């Protein structure tokens, strides 16, 4: 039997969780004070997930960068690959918030979408 410990991030309370595992199976979650905490503990022990936010280059916009994020969480162990995929992208202004920038990023089933509108700026002001 193995014990893993985490700080829960489901809400700002930050309960200290202990997850007992037998191989790949979760036997018990301890230390949570709500259902979401238990769910978080299970997920974190088996396959931790994260939401990622970053920026992509944008051409012809008010700013040179467009903030983007994964609409949903992706496996923590694949963060570097997601970041690399984001780094490879360049978009053209104008962009609308929630516009899909990278559909199904590296096959995770999660889209990378724009966090904001990015208006087009023509005269370089």
């Amino acid at each position, binding site marked *: 039997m193995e014990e893993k410990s985490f700080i829960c991030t489901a809400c700002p309370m930050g309960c200290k969780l202990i997850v007992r595992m037998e191989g790949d199976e979760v036997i018990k979650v301890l230390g949570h004070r709500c259902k979401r905490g238990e769910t978080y503990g299970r997920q974190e022990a088996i396959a931790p997930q994260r939401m990622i936010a970053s920026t992509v*280059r944008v051409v012809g916009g008010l700013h040179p960068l467009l903030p983007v994020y994964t609409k949903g969480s992706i496996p923590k162990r694949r963060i570097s690959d997601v970041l690399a995929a984001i780094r490879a992208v360049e978009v053209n202004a104008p962009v609308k918030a929630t516009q899909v920038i990278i559909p199904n990023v590296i096959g995770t089933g999660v889209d990378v979408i724009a966090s904001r509108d990015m208006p087009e700026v023509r005269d370089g002001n």
Partner: protein
Amino acid sequence: MQKKYDFIVIGAGVIGCMIARWLSRYEGRVLVIEKQADVGMGTTAANTSIVHAGYDPVPGSLKARMNVKGNAMWDQLKAELNFAYVRSGDYVVAIGEEELPALDTLMVQGKKNGVPGMIMISGEEMRAREKNINPNVSGALWASTGGICDCFQVNVAAGENAAMNGAEFKFDTAFEDFIMEGDRIIGIKTNRGDFLSRWVVNAAGLYSDVVMHKAGVRPEFKIRPRKGEYFVFDRADIQIDNVLFPVPSDAGKGIMVTNTVHGNTIIGPNAQIIDDKEDTTTTIPGMDEIWEGAQKLIPTLDRRHVIATFAGLRAMGNGPCKTPGVNYNKDYIIEIPENVRGFVNLGGIESPGLAASPAIAEEVIDLLKDAGEDLREKKDWEPIRQARPRFRDMSHKDRQLLVEMDPHFGRVICRCENVTEGEILAEIHAPIPAVTYDAIKRRTWLGTGRCQGGFDMTRVVAILARELGVSPLEITKRGHNSEYLVRETKESEAADDN
């Protein structure tokens, strides 16, 4: 590269720029070289900005003569160059009865030096003039000719006036050696090439010894840096009405408490002799020492109101006084040496260098004339250098007119000190351009307030890049090696998974 000048001045501090300003009045090509990115980044950048009255230097010394003569020139200098200066008077304050004799000594000394307008006042009178003074004050010497200024503005103004009248300035240009023909200096070698000139003036401040030794002049002369640390207080939290000195000691004029032309109060400096001419670090023992010293004059100071600290180095020399009978070995050197021709040599211009600066410049002109130099005044010499508008000092009505005239003055970049883009642009395109963040900060006072650049920094970097036509990656705080930004965000490999 082989252009020939008539005068090269080494150093663009207040002494170098003041000399250049005086030289630029006469026919002849003037070049000022400066190893740093801007004028006044050495001693001039970090001192108390006091225009001393002249009771402190040893009677008979060149220091004393230059101080008193220089002090008297400041009203006209301000009228011509338009910098912040007030002849506010200064006080030497005696705490306790045992310190009163020291005031008498200063009074006698001041009279010997020819200082006008000195009066003794009682402890009670001093308490009336400065509410928060130590209640044990026993009396004070009031020197009504003392003053305060913005020494950096003085430096810039003098330099700009010189530039307006044809003087050239080369920054990031460091003196390396002289070019000699026998015993005559005919030029200098720098890290940016050679420059020929009939005369070279040594205004190199902390490095004036190194420069003169290269010409074989005064091998025994040595500059030892004397470090002084300072605290600056928030304008909103504290109000000192006067310029206050303690009774002097062997170490110097002592740790003072003074208001400044910007309305802040500053305290300092201490006096620590060090070896490293580049060491302008503030230190914990130093800061404790000035804190303790200042409390002697104003016990009610609150350390929580300190918003900035800095340290400056004075160029303390070991020049012997030339006046017969005066035994003093820290006097100014201002001379045309006998063993080398084409050289005006200055050394050891520490306090009261700022007060003395116009007199020193005149002294250099006199020395050149005595040496046979035929100085002819330029027909179109312009003595007046106008000040540029300061939005923060203007009324609502005047601001409206200024913004109508040039909309760039409507865009406020430093919110805390109300400095506008128009002012920043004016400094970038001034006769001596400001090309670093600190250069703009020193000139406009931007970034010195509550947020210490938090709002304006990214904007000033962008404006500088745009106006200078370079990438923001090249913009620096204080010259090369102090860039803000290292690369674009989207350039690097990803972080490894953990």
